[in-house]
């Protein structure tokens, strides 16, 4: 049985009829065409699919779209405003926080949550706050620096 969902995504109200088993990440990518949210592992481990649901970082491969009915979802596409990069995005740009870029959307979303909860994190706290996000390229060092850069900006 299909269900109607009403979800506010990056500030716009969207509604669709979906199967209950449709994962939020597939709703975002396949139904809305917001392919900035990546699928890295499908097994809840890599964090590439991280989005904010009502302000909380969640792995959108581990949530059904029906669970987000009535929620506010923010994906990487919702971060830059008026052509201006979000400070965390700017940090990744300035400090070379990415190579292939696969993990980057999830990293930026998780890092924004981290800075919201702890505006001046230590390097240790940044690593701890991003433990749910895996990167196979950078060795994390530049990601940590990118978040430090953003912390100074915000």
């Amino acid at each position: 049985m299909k269900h109607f969902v009403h979800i506010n995504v990056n500030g716009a109200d969207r509604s669709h009829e979906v199967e209950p088993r449709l994962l939020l990440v597939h709703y975002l990518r396949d139904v809305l065409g917001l392919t900035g949210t990546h699928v890295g592992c499908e097994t809840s481990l890599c964090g590439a699919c991280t989005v904010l649901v009502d302000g909380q970082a969640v792995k959108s491969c581990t949530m059904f779209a029906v669970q987000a009915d009535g929620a506010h979802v923010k994906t990487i596409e919702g971060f830059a405003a008026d052509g201006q990069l979000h400070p965390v995005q700017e940090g990744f740009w300035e400090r070379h926080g990415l190579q292939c870029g696969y993990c980057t959307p999830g990293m930026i979303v998780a890092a924004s949550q981290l800075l919201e909860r702890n505006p001046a994190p230590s390097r240790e706290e940044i690593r701890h706050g991003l433990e749910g996000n895996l990167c196979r390229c950078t060795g994390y060092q530049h990601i940590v620096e990118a978040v430090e850069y953003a912390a100074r900006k915000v």
Partner: protein
Amino acid sequence: MIPAQFDYVAPVTLDEALSLLAEHQDEAKILAGGHSLIPAMKLRFAQPALLVDIGRLKDLAYIREEGGQVRVGAMTTHYQLESSARLREICPLLPECAAAIGDVQVRNKGTIGGSLAHSDPAADWPAAILALDAEMIVVSAVGERAIPASDFFVDMLTTALAPNEILREIRVPLPPPRTGHAYAKLPHPASGFAVVGVAASVTRGADGTCESASVGVTGVSVKAYRARGVELALKGGALGQQEIAGAATHAADGVDLNEDLAASADYRRHLAEVYARRAIERAASRVS
């Protein structure tokens, strides 16, 4: 990794959820944070016909002090427990255990009730809940009952919950004065779950000796358990390094040991002892 088809309902009251369970029995499954159930459904290990999503029962997410207890609603997330400043003062084992679970995203969604009801042999909460001698308040369409933590975990992924019951609340007695807590865990390098996790609550007498101790162990056997041998060895004695090390040798007494790629049975026995020692030492050192 697409789950099998299912029907979905998101009741807005607990009564509605309970009558759905009563009506559908084994066909239905509760969906809480979904961070054990959804991965299992994606692998098709679980194929429930109906999901009853209790995620909209916001009044099941709370942390209260009442009747000499800390009362935690089943839908309280790991993050809510981890970040509670009040709990850090009155029952520090709860936030310490919460912070040891998975990663930030998992802690934002996963709930204490879901973890306990799932009863994964490597889950963290069962160790803490046993060490704190908590009580589970369980409801069904016909009434409510209380299950002590030591009777709640029955077997691998099996609890004393009946299919028509919902775990509503966890009641933790407020720790007596001169009590220290600690949770010591060896996380699995890939999954983050406990290869071994030991939660200890140690109460000193006025003279500094051990008045009582309770120790919960997870990851070691098919279900979490109280290490009664350790507790008995500690009771009434000094809490020096030697005494604690001696008591910790009983950490895996009388249990069948898990064995997997992360740790052989022998290694797990060894780890249980080491992590019991660390948890008890740290708990004892925190008694002011």
